[in-house]
């Protein structure tokens, strides 16, 4: 990856331990460019999820700096942190929608960070927001009639699309995806990764994906970061990923799941 367009996210010296003496992340240094899908691969427990969650502070780093839009995310608190989070969209493995709300309400939830409280309370969203929500539902591949369906009436793939629409509603500068396909069947997984790739290209937003499936990573990512035991052991384009690297990441021939 060339350093075109400048880095959007700059991680330096990131270090995290849940229990002292047992670090989960050891000295991570990364620069994320302003476009493209970056896939983080590695076995379970190696800190992939922790790394992603440190970025938007769902997990607090023990040490290190995360520079995003000119601010160090690791130092922010309260209102400033919320402000920063407004610009980072996140997609989850378990979709994390509000089950009892409709699809359109879930998508509109993406803007909660920027609306005065009376709007969601009385459900009086501006026409602009509602139109944008409908457009997003469209663009993630769901037809209009889904808008008023309850979230728990949808299939896994459909829910994840809503999750992506919700993240897009924030107009984010960065999208994080924590194992977005691990709860989906193979075909739907491909569809979702395609969607993330498409979103990244069309809207020029960098996407960082945490993923188990190496083939999917190779297919859709423009940059692969391999982690093992809390450290980055590979960083480069998919074609540079050789079996030797995979052995190092996953240990032995076990990566061939």
């Amino acid at each position, binding site marked *: 990856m060339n350093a075109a367009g400048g880095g959007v996210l700059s991680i330096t010296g990131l270090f995290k331990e849940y229990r002292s003496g047992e670090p989960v992340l050891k000295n991570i240094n990364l620069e994320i460019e302003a476009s493209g899908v970056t896939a983080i691969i590695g076995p379970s427990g190696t800190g992939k999820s922790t790394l992603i969650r440190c970025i938007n502070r769902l997990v607090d780093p023990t040490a290190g700096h995360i520079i995003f839009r000119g601010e160090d995310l690791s130092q922010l608190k309260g209102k400033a942190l919320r402000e920063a989070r407004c610009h*980072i969209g996140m997609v989850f493995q*378990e979709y994390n929608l*509000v*089950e*009892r709300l409709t699809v359109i309400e879930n998508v509109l*939830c993406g803007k909660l960070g920027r609306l005065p*409280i009376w709007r969601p*309370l009385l459900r009086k969203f501006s026409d602009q927001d509602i139109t944008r929500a409908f457009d997003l539902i469209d663009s993630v591949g769901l037809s209009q009639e889904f808008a008023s369906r309850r979230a728990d009436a949808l299939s896994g793939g459909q829910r994840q699309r809503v999750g992506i629409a*919700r*993240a897009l509603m924030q107009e984010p500068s960065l999208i994080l995806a924590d194992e977005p396909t691990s709860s989906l069947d193979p075909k739907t997984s491909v569809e979702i990764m395609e969607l993330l790739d498409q979103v990244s290209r069309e809207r020029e937003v960098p996407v960082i994906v945490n993923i188990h499936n190496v083939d999917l990573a190779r297919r859709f990512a423009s940059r692969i970061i391999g982690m093992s035991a809390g450290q980055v052991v590979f960083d480069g384009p998919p074609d540079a990923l050789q079996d030797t690297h995979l052995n190092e990441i996953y240990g032995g021939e076990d990566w061939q799941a």
Partner: protein
Amino acid sequence: MNRPLQIINERHWERFSSTERIGRSAFYIVTVVAFIWALKKIEVIPEFLYDAPEQTADLFKRMWPFDWKFYPDNIHPALIETFHIATLGTLISLLIAVPLAFLAARNFTSNKTLNWIAQFIFVSTRSVNSLIWALLFVAIFGPGALAGVLSIAFRSIGFVGKLFGEAIEEANRGTIEALTASGAPRSMVLVKGYWPQVSPAFWSVALLRWDINIRESAVLGLVGAGGIGVALDSAMNNLYWDQVGLILAIIFTVVIITEIVTSSIRSRIL
């Protein structure tokens, strides 16, 4: 709970571990001992026991037929008042208990002191019966429905708060995480993340408590806190057993109707 249900140890099968067995045996032994102790200590006056059947028969004879003409002027307004006491009391308790429940829920409020204070309020309001609350409020505000409403309200805070607090703690963590990650402030996370998940539980608990409160409001009048209990008290003091019979029958009917209504609504919510 991540305990194995059985302990299989080298061909020796036990359904419960030894600590569990000791615990269970201790429980049975203590229960039996307590029962026997209680039986020995309790005072029963034999003479009263002998003519019990006679007394009971006499009582029922005096209650029937009911004194129907007593109804319109004396009972009907009292009945309505009982209804108001139960409903207003329940509503007031909801107003107080819901915010406290959010304070008590460990996933919403991380401050342990606040958790503890809210839980303490719940336990203490639960431990005092509505009748006893009524004694206090009658002493402060004088006899009448105001004392009744406040008694119902205070007693219900603990009940509602505990059950609703538990419902809040069972809210899906992931959903809350997602909303927090998008930069939403706490108030929004509450309105759009917690509330949709816990609202069925809220209505269910509210209806349940209202049902119980109808029952409780009927007796508060015995200590002067308004409602049909007042009519019951005076009828009993004057030994007008046919009126007593009527009042009991009315209470029974109202309770049954309320219970049927609330159970059918609650089963539809959940």
